[in-house]
């Protein structure tokens, strides 16, 4: 098929589709007067167009109308939006629960730490007495030292305890931070318990 035939087919196509301009119509009319093949082609394309329109219309004309399809889609979209909101709400609830758990956990943690540091006062013999700091007038005079893990005493910022045995002997016990009992450094005079 050469370019002339393409041009002619385009013009005939435009004619059957109702898209031809007056100038093009004049050109085509002149061609149709002299070209019997063009006239035959015009008839074929007219027939083809008519049948094709019917065939395509038969295929696509059924089914839901635009309004029906749109309404269904709109409702479907509204439902999915509502579901999205619910899902978001669920996530929010989860986040809130997580935050509450975290706060509760932190609260318990700090309460436990605070409880561990709270001073416990001895009220009598046989109890462990803990103090946050050694009294200034405390001296090592009346207390038997326990030397664990070497000949040199270890000095450190630790809790210490005074233990009075049932027989009346006093022991200075260093804090049990690492599960060890160490000797503590102290100054001053022991205060009577």
């Amino acid at each position, binding site marked *: 098929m050469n370019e002339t035939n393409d041009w002619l087919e385009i013009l005939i196509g435009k004619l059957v589709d109702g898209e031809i301009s007056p100038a093009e119509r004049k050109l085509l009319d002149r061609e149709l007067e002299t070209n019997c093949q063009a006239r035959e082609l015009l008839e074929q394309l007219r027939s083809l167009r008519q049948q094709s329109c019917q*065939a395509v219309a*038969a295929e696509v004309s059924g089914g839901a109308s635009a309004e029906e399809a749109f309404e269904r889609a709109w409702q479907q979209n509204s439902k999915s939006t509502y579901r999205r909101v619910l899902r978001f709400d669920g996530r929010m609830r989860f986040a809130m629960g997580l935050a509450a758990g975290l706060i509760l956990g932190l609260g318990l943690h700090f309460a436990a730490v605070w409880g561990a540091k709270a001073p416990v006062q001895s009220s009598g013999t046989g109890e462990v007495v803990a103090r946050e700091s050694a009294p200034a007038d405390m001296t090592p005079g009346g207390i038997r030292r326990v030397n664990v893990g070497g000949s040199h005493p270890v000095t450190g910022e630790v809790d210490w305890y005074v233990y009075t045995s049932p027989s009346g002997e006093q022991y200075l016990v260093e804090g049990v931070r690492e599960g060890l009992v160490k000797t503590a450094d102290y100054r001053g005079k022991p205060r009577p318990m």
Partner: protein
Amino acid sequence: METTGQNESALACAAQRGDKEALQVLLKRNWGWLKGLVYSVLADAQELDDVLQEVCLRVITRIHTLREPERFRAWLATVARREVLKHYRRRTHQDVRNSKFEIRNLSEANIRDPLQDVEKSELCGRILEAVKTLPEKYREVFVLAHTGELTYAEMAEVLDVPMTTMQIRLVRARRMVQNQVIGKTDIRCTNDERDE
């Protein structure tokens, strides 16, 4: 046509602002060719409604992404094509385009009195069979041209090609269908496609 385009642009803007009625009017106006386009890509009239429903849903949810309201038709065509492709992926059958293109019995369709013109029905069936064998770009333009909804300029806009390209595709699609219907083998198709 310019007025229609301007109106559609205004409607598209309104739809982007959440105007349900504007969106409905837009879809209603473009429904005819949209069905034709989906049909031409899907090549299956049975699932046309399902895909069109998905297209509507997609348009509702994605209208805010339309950057050029004056090109609503081209955007709609792109959305429709994407939905058809998604539909393909969802389907379990392979090579649907060639094997599942079912030609409905025209007596069940909207031809009023098919028994009076059996030859015509047979011819319609042959045309649809021929359309089935067209390459997609020719099938699209052929079906769009025969929905009778769009002008050449509008078809070019929907297909997102220059008008001359659209015209050449239409001529070649018709030639191929015509040759198939009358029993010729169109050996020029490959050359024509290369020439375009």
